[in-house]
């Protein structure tokens, strides 16, 4: 295959553990009660437009965007709004949620539920963006940035390349992999739609080389379309990071503090491309997604198509139950995912997977003194010095943290993964970023 493309700076290769890569996507039954958090996207939370007692259908609008960087939320189930109340979500905090008691599974009539694949694009770019905006689509790779915002480059900037992220560099997760194998045609059409919306002539779909079946399948499908190229990438974490993927795909570096559009690129996840296809061609808003349920002790590592609002307990049950020695449950992958506090936390738009870790692998090793081995510096994909930044944060020297570019940190965790002294570097980096961010905002207000 020759030399595979990848990003240049840093990177690690943790054990892949893609246990569920051969498990076809299974559709999960609708839950008895759906808990739909109002804050499911990066940016402002949505505003509920239904009230207690309202009857809703699947696909009906429940909440409207609460700002420019915000999204609509549609009902994933049919039934009666039980209450709008605070419930625990993936953040570990109680936050406003719409809770619906499910009755039947009645879909809004406007949704095309036929199995036909529609490849002809009839909408104009403007209409496409409007549709994506109204359908509540966010980046499904986990960042949950509203998709439509990315499709509207600021004045003076034009997109040149669309890059579709099929990297799935997180260990364990396989939802994107299964999507490419089973919904490849739809993803390619979704890519076409996004190209139309952005008016770009060239799209790359980046897939890591540990998914040769997906690379083959997608390459075969892409042949029928002009301007879509599948790129096989060398396996390296965090290649799914936007900036790393752009570097790997088109060899451009997004300048510090800028967005990908600065170098003419827009990056979207494969799951997002699929959601775009469904929204634009089938008039189906985003209310379900594929979630990987996996872990070394999980009896049946699976990929489920689950409605938003389904409690994760139901997904774990479908994967044949919570293992006895469960020590930690992670929403997302092991590198960037969040530890979950409860089994009643619902699936949200950004849920790519649920990883169940055994007790033995759940706790951290005891932190030792830094031996200045520089390994954190070698693996940092942003060219930062995590040992220095973490120390600056620890000592509350935020000026130094800022001048040493702490805000460039993408929180990929490579530094901490490789630290022989088991120093929780990323904990300190997150703290530092939070504080420096506050200082910077204050400064810009003055």
């Amino acid at each position, binding site marked *: 295959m020759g030399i595979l493309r990848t990003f240049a700076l840093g990177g690690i290769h943790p054990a892949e553990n893609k246990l569920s890569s051969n498990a076809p996507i299974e559709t999960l039954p609708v839950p008895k009660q759906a808990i739909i958090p109002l804050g499911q996207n990066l940016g402002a939370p949505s505003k509920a437009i239904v009230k207690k007692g309202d009857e809703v259908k699947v696909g009906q609008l429940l909440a409207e965007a609460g700002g420019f960087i915000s999204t609509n939320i549609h009902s994933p189930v049919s039934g009666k709004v039980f209450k709008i109340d605070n419930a625990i979500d993936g953040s570990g905090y109680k936050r406003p949620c719409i809770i619906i008691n499910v009755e039947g599974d009645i879909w809004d009539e406007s949704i095309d539920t036929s199995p036909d694949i529609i490849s002809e694009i009839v909408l104009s770019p403007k209409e496409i963006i409007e549709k994506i905006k109204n359908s509540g689509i966010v980046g499904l790779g986990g960042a949950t940035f509203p998709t439509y915002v990315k499709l509207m480059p600021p004045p003076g900037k034009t997109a040149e390349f669309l890059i579709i992220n099929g990297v799935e560099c997180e260990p364990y997760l396989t939802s994107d992999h299964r999507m490419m194998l089973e919904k490849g045609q739809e993803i390619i059409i979704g890519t076409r739609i996004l190209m139309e919306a952005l008016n770009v002539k060239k799209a790359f779909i980046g897939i890591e080389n540990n998914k040769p079946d997906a690379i083959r399948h997608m390459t075969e499908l892409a042949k029928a379309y002009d301007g879509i190229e599948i790129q096989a990438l060398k396996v390296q974490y965090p290649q799914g990071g936007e900036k790393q993927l752009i570097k790997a795909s088109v060899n451009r570096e997004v300048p510090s503090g800028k967005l990908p559009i600065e170098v003419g690129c827009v990056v979207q996840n494969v799951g997002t491309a699929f959601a775009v296809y469904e929204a634009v061609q089938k008039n189906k808003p985003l209310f379900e997604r594929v979630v990987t349920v996996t872990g070394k002790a999980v009896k049946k590592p699976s990929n489920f198509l689950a409605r938003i609002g389904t409690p994760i307990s139901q997904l774990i049950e479908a994967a044949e139950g919570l293992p006895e020695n469960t020590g930690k449950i992670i929403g997302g992958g092991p590198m960037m995912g969040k530890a979950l506090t409860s089994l009643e936390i619902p699936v949200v738009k950004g849920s790519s997977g649920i990883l169940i870790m055994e007790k033995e692998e759940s706790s951290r090793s005891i932190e030792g003194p830094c031996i200045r081995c520089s390994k954190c510096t070698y693996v940092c994909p942003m*060219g930062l010095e995590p040992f220095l930044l973490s120390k600056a944060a620890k000592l509350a020297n935020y000026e130094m943290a800022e001048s040493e570019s702490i805000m460039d940190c993408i929180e990929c965790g490579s530094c*901490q993964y490789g630290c022989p002294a088991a120093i929780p570097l*990323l904990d300190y980096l997150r703290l530092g970023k939070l504080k420096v961010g506050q200082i910077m905002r204050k400064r810009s207000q003055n």
Partner: protein
Amino acid sequence: MSKFTISGSPHIQGDESTKKIMYGVVIAMVPTMLFSIYFFGLDAIRVFLIAIAASLFFEWIIQKYLIKGPLTINDGSALVTAILLALNLPSNLPIWMIIIGALVAIGMAKMSFGGLGKNVFNPALVARVFLLVSFPVEMTSWPKPSPITDGLADVITGPTPLGIVKEGLGANKTMSELAPELPSYTQGLMGEMGGSMGEVSALALLLGGVYMLWKKIITWHIPVSMLLTVAIFSGIFWGVDPEHYADPIFHMLTGGMLLGAIFMATDMVTSPMTKGGQLIFGFGVGLLTILIRMWGAYPEGVSFAILIMNATVPLINRGFKPRRFGAKPGVVLTK
């Protein structure tokens, strides 16, 4: 409270650990230790045992009663320092001097800075230099290696090849006149020449270096830039005047050059954090070594060179930053 563990990402940890790195260094030193035992016999074993016992004891007692921190003697770092110290000593050094060396290395150079990771100077080298200036006679009477297979003969002491060259050139002799007294390249490679316990066999040291490179304990930057600097500098002088300057290969094989380049200058704690910085550091060590060897008062300069460069590390770290992603336009935009 949740019954599950809650902690920030990442939730998995690579299999690196401080202990693993330290014991990796110990493994890398095994060939050198075996060669020194082969050449210096029971004396070498004596030095190793005393240095190790004393170093671990000082580490333990200082950690327990002065720093009052958790037990650190099994993290391997004191063991590494102890073995490095032993490799820097002549095999006939009196026991009490070895113990003083261990106290200086562990107590003064390491623990007084706060322990592992906080020291500025390489502890074993601080101890070597301390002993050298305190006990110049004992620290420069080098036993001649006699393979253990020749039986336990009386120890004969003599100068190191570098000492022969320093003294000879100082007495207006030429290199060709000195040649009969110097070891051949093969002898240098195998270690059949006078010197401290770890300075003898270039082959054993290189073996350890390859192991550490393979295990990613060290990177090539410091040793290569240091040795290259030495080769180029000594090569220039030798090329101009081979009768008054030793050749580069002689410089490589003798004294603490390889021991320093592979095991001492690469010490993580006391070397720069970035690869650019490491190249500069290696260059500095190489340059200072040759300056001292050619014009300094001592025949050997590696220890001083490394210690001097250790002091510059904070400055190097400040000046040499890794290339930040997106900091400079690495590619021309097609617009």
